[in-house]
């Protein structure tokens, strides 16, 4: 069990050594978002911007015009919420090479409660033309994602989490932006997940297997551009799809999958995520359970389709 935000911090430190153009900005959350190591190693390339996320985002855009690869870091709520219009107009519209890297996404922020639990960020970032949206599921994939995001040309939203989560990629971790990873193959139903829901999807598939139901499980770590090739293959083979994400069922991975399927191959879909509601304070595991964002919730959605 390790947090994706820790992987981000470790990868950022490596990037600092590899590429002198990589710079990091933060908004009074340096230790929380794990830019501390980078800041200590490269003080000249680290910028504390205070509690001013919209300004931080525009400043990062300015740096990108000068050839830097800025990682603008804060909590998902503020980096994509407070700063949305900066991302849209000063990063997205000019298609600048800014990486919006945000931790503390989703319900698993935990005790801080609804004001800090960002469940709409994937939707907000996905609607911006030219934006790439990446949601890694565990430590190894978040590490690989951070490296891939730095190498990618153009604006990216990298969505990370606060708590330690189960490791999905124990051995190797293939990671190509825009390419989903098929983790398990079965022909009865496909579970398309990202973030912490990938581990729960595998658990749910185990449970289904006990009942004689063969499920495919795919990690769709990139919500945009969506891997429509893999999606179409899953739809053709399984004919039923369940999406699972730590996000509102509106506008996120479920939305992206439905939009694609409606055009490519209309397929029945069920959506695991928060059901158009705000979160609340509580321990991450308690909240995942209450809001159905766990293996039980995924199983229930699968049963609806089978």
């Amino acid at each position, binding site marked *: 069990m390790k947090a994706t935000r820790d992987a981000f911090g470790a990868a950022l430190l490596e990037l600092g050594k590899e590429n002198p153009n990589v710079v990091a900005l933060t908004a009074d959350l340096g*230790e929380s978002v794990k830019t501390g190591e980078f800041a200590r190693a490269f003080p000249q390339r680290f910028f504390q911007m205070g*509690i001013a996320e919209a300004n931080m985002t525009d400043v990062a855009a300015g740096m990108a015009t000068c050839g830097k690869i800025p990682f603008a870091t804060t909590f998902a709520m503020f980096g994509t919420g407070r700063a949305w219009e900066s991302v849209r107009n000063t990063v997205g519209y000019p298609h600048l090479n800014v990486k919006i890297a945000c931790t503390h996404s989703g319900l698993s922020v935990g005790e801080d409660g609804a*004001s800090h639990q960002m469940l709409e960020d994937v939707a907000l970032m996905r609607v911006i033309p030219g934006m790439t949206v990446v949601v890694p599921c565990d430590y190894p994939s978040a590490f690989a994602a951070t490296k891939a995001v730095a190498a990618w040309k153009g604006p990216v939203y990298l969505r990370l989490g606060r708590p330690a989560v189960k490791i999905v990629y124990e051995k190797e971790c293939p990671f190509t932006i825009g390419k989903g990873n098929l983790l398990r193959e079965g022909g009865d139903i496909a579970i398309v997940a990202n973030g912490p829901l990938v581990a729960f999807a595998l658990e749910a598939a185990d449970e289904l297997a006990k009942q004689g139901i063969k499920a495919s499980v795919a990690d769709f770590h990139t919500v945009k551009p969506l891997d429509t090739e893999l999606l179409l293959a899953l739809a053709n083979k399984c004919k039923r799809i369940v999406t699972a994400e730590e996000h509102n069922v509106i506008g996120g991975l479920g939305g992206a999958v439905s939009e694609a399927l409606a055009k490519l191959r209309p397929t029945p879909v069920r959506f695991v995520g928060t059901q158009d509601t705000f979160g*609340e*304070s509580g321990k991450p595991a308690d909240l995942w359970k209450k809001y159905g964002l766990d293996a039980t919730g995924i199983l229930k959605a699968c049963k609806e389709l089978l």
Partner: protein
Amino acid sequence: MLTMTTAETSTMSREIRLTDALQTDLKETARKLRVEVIKMLAKAGSGHPGGSLGMADIFASLYFGGWLRHDPKNPLWEGRDRLVLSNGHICPILYASLAARGYFPAEWMASLRQVDAHLQGHPAMHKTPGVELSTGSLGHGVCGAVGMALALRADGGDRRVYCLTGDGELQEGLPWEGFMSAAHYKLDNLTVIVDRNDAQIDGKTTDIMNIEPLGDKFRAWGFHTIAINGHDFSQIFAALNEAERTKGKPTCIVAITQMGKGVSYMEKEGYKWHGKTPNAELAAVALKELGA
């Protein structure tokens, strides 16, 4: 349960005198509120003690010194004054105050920050009686308070809005827009109180992103501006009275406070206690120092 005394308030004259007896009461009230803050946070295992303790004397004054005209049995009473906690993370001190005033049972404090709790990690107006606006994302409360002051003034009467904000919070752009509009609309029914503890999450506010000269900024916006020691009741009362007397412009009280006030190790370590809760051992030390 806490038992606390209230000052006599006259709705005719909004001059409140701090008698020696009231000052003694308020000191004791603030001490009890601090005790509740530590107990609540130690139980919850997460939350923000530093600012909560630092603002306890001001909360004691507002809720127990007769400043807020309100009715805990009728939280939505139309004639009430409003308190907006724009720095929502210090809600433990708000919850301790509301519980002591009888807005809800003291038992609620034991489930702070747990699933299904009435008391959320940041104030939620639909879950907790006495919370006037849901806050937690910094900056919004200031602007919401301006809206309340405008609406209450338009409806007539002398209802006042008190808006509390952190000094780190003032690095955001939103409060600047709010202050500009408060001055533009000459909102003399708005009192802003800044928790000027020179502390935020990553360090001292002065080092992270300097906001000085703060008094000059407020004066430039068009505020009547007063700097006080936020732990000195006579200065708190003098400033609140001065805000009442000030006509034609909003008032800003820059309250110089100490993060973690009342608990020696927190006072010493300052910003490190912004959002970290004491473990059982340190909580016991804190409670002992607070005379619990």
